[in-house]
């Protein structure tokens, strides 16, 4: 197999991806692409990212052998890539640092971003505080309720958080408003998109900034086991932690890649966020990708217990991986995620984000079907402090 080089020069991954944006934004996305290619060639830019990732974010993150979880699953060895130990508590900071520095390089001192669970919002607000940039974050009103603590965090960091009440008042609607804001303020504002979605070059550059996860994993695993892992498991909303994890392994065809979507109340119901499992290709937020949509091409609302997976689309590169079969995509229900959340907390003393708990849940199923000599690495994308309230409400027989 030839070395994987996508996207092509127009930002396409097969039929997926592209730049389906209003003309007002075209100049901005073309400039961003240009700036990114230049920055990539600049050793100073790269060393500044590396320095901040090391000294500020706390990389590299550990690769932890989860012995108790492995015993529980009774099959393959399960390792956890501890992105939850990053500054701000999730992988989102990797991308925020990269794009923040890129914005400064482009002379843009204002940042707009969307957030679902609030993790990307917090990461963005953090980087804006660090780099002294103005920051405005759009967040669905429903998510603001679910993640009140993260809203307060962003405000403490100096960001303005704007509630979005349109549509399902979740991540999709926050992206709509962030895009509208960007259209109106494109001259001096950079849109710091938080996932591997949106118009080219976003899926590519977010992937590249997140690829540090997979690169470290590869080296750490090799040091420990002298080989490559047999399988990689990561959760998928838009798909950034999973793509960051998958991408460095693309050309290692023996490494199986598993993406885990949110099945919500079940993929046979209307309440899920399993875009790859149940959706079909379409165009939203600047890219052609798998989408949850009705027969008329109207985008449907997604549902998941975890705000970070609550998005009706999935990045174009994942859509492409599904199409060519390089990765396989599965789904885990709210209930299963909740059980894994509790399980990992008890077994390993690690409270995972509800998003990451989806990946943990799937890895247990997968491990039990694999040999004890085989290994799985799970991307533990974030820590669960933000979800403790949600879980307490559910366990206490609260809201749901």
């Amino acid at each position, binding site marked *: 197999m030839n070395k994987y080089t996508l996207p092509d020069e*127009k930002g396409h991954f097969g039929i997926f991806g*592209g*730049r*389906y*944006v*209003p*003309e*007002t*934004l*075209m*100049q*901005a996305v073309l400039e961003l692409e240009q700036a990114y290619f230049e920055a990539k060639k600049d050793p100073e830019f790269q060393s500044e990212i590396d320095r901040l990732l090391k000294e500020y974010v706390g990389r590299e993150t550990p690769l932890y052998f989860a012995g108790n979880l492995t015993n529980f699953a009774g099959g393959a060895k399960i390792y956890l890539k501890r992105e939850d130990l990053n500054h701000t508590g999730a992988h989102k900071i990797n991308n925020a640092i990269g794009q923040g520095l890129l914005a400064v390089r482009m002379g843009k001192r204002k940042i707009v971003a969307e957030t679902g669970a609030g993790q990307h919002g917090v990461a963005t607000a953090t980087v804006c505080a660090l780099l002294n940039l103005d920051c405005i974050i759009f967040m669905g009103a429903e998510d603001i309720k679910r993640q009140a603590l993260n809203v307060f965090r962003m405000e403490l960091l100096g960001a303005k958080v704007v509630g979005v009440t*349109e*549509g399902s008042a979740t991540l*999709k609607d926050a992206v*709509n408003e962030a*895009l*509208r804001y960007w*259209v*109106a*303020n*494109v*001259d001096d504002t950079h849109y710091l998109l938080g996932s591997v979605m949106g118009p080219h070059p976003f899926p590519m550059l977010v992937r590249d900034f997140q690829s540090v996860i997979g690169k470290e994993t590869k080296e750490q695993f090799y040091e420990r086991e002298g080989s490559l892992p047999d399988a990689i498991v990561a959760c998928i909303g838009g798909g950034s932690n999973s793509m960051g994890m998958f991408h460095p392994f693309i050309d290692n065809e023996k490494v199986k890649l598993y993406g885990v979507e949110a099945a919500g109340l079940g993929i046979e119901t209307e309440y899920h966020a399993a875009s790859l499992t149940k959706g079909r*290709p*379409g*165009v*939203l*937020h*600047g890219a*052609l990708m798998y*989408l949850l*949509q009705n*027969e*008329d*091409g*109207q*985008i449907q609302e997604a549902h998941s217990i975890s705000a970070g997976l609550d998005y009706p689309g999935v990045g174009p590169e994942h859509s492409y991986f599904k199409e060519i079969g390089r990765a396989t995509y599965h789904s885990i229900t709210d209930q299963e995620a909740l059980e894994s959340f509790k399980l990992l907390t008890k077994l390993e003393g690690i409270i995972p984000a509800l998003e990451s708990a989806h990946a943990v849940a799937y890895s247990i199923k997968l491990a039990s079907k694999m040999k004890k000599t085989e290994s799985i690495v799970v991307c533990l994308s974030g820590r669960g402090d933000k979800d403790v309230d949600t879980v307490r409400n559910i366990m206490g027989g609260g809201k749901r």
Partner: protein
Amino acid sequence: MNRLKQAFAELDRKHQKAFVPYIMAGDGGIETLKDKLKILEEMGATAIEIGVPFSDPVADGPTIQQAGIRALQNGTSLTKIIEELSIIRNSLSVPILLMTYLNPIYSYGIQRFVENIQIAGVDGCIIPDLPLEEEEIIVPMLNKANIQLIRLVTLTTPLERIKFISQKGEGFLYAVTIKGTTGVRNNFEQELSGFLKSVKEMSPIPVLAGFGISDEKQIKEISLHCDGVIVGSKIIECFQNGDIESLEKLVSTLKF
């Protein structure tokens, strides 16, 4: 000859400017579409832009967003709009433009969409999330069907690109007058008249200005620098309020 080209040739002969109103199909029920089109045709609209509702209209402001939500709640879909147009087209002679985001078309099937809107007598399409870089996905089929793709240029489009787009363009060039979404504005940026002037100088086809234009004063001022205007949110408000008098005033602003 395409109806749209004919309409512009006629305006040229009469030394008049174009007025293109926008309505949201299915707002108030799909059955009101025929009457609205009839009213606007009789008032002398140059062409009529029919919006297809979409769940995530990122280029639109609150008025058109709300109209879209109302239309979707009425059960409006691209399929129903095309069916309705096929039935009523014969009773109308005004050029009809379909303004739709790409996903409803993609979902409907691009080839099938072009074939069926050709049968339904649509003269042109405006697709706000389809820039030049991606238009090959539909342009060859539209060309074959003699349906014009109306391309947009904006205040952020560099001159070279405006030139390139205008030369590819057919029907007319849609000059977006604001950096922002659709909807009524009180003020326009200083640079607008200069922008329109340079677009006009470069474009081999008529240039129509749209986004944010809502009253007679704005219509008159802006049309000085181009070949006419497109008005959307204000038209929707007039129909919403049943204010046919204001509507007539607006549409006839440029008839002199």
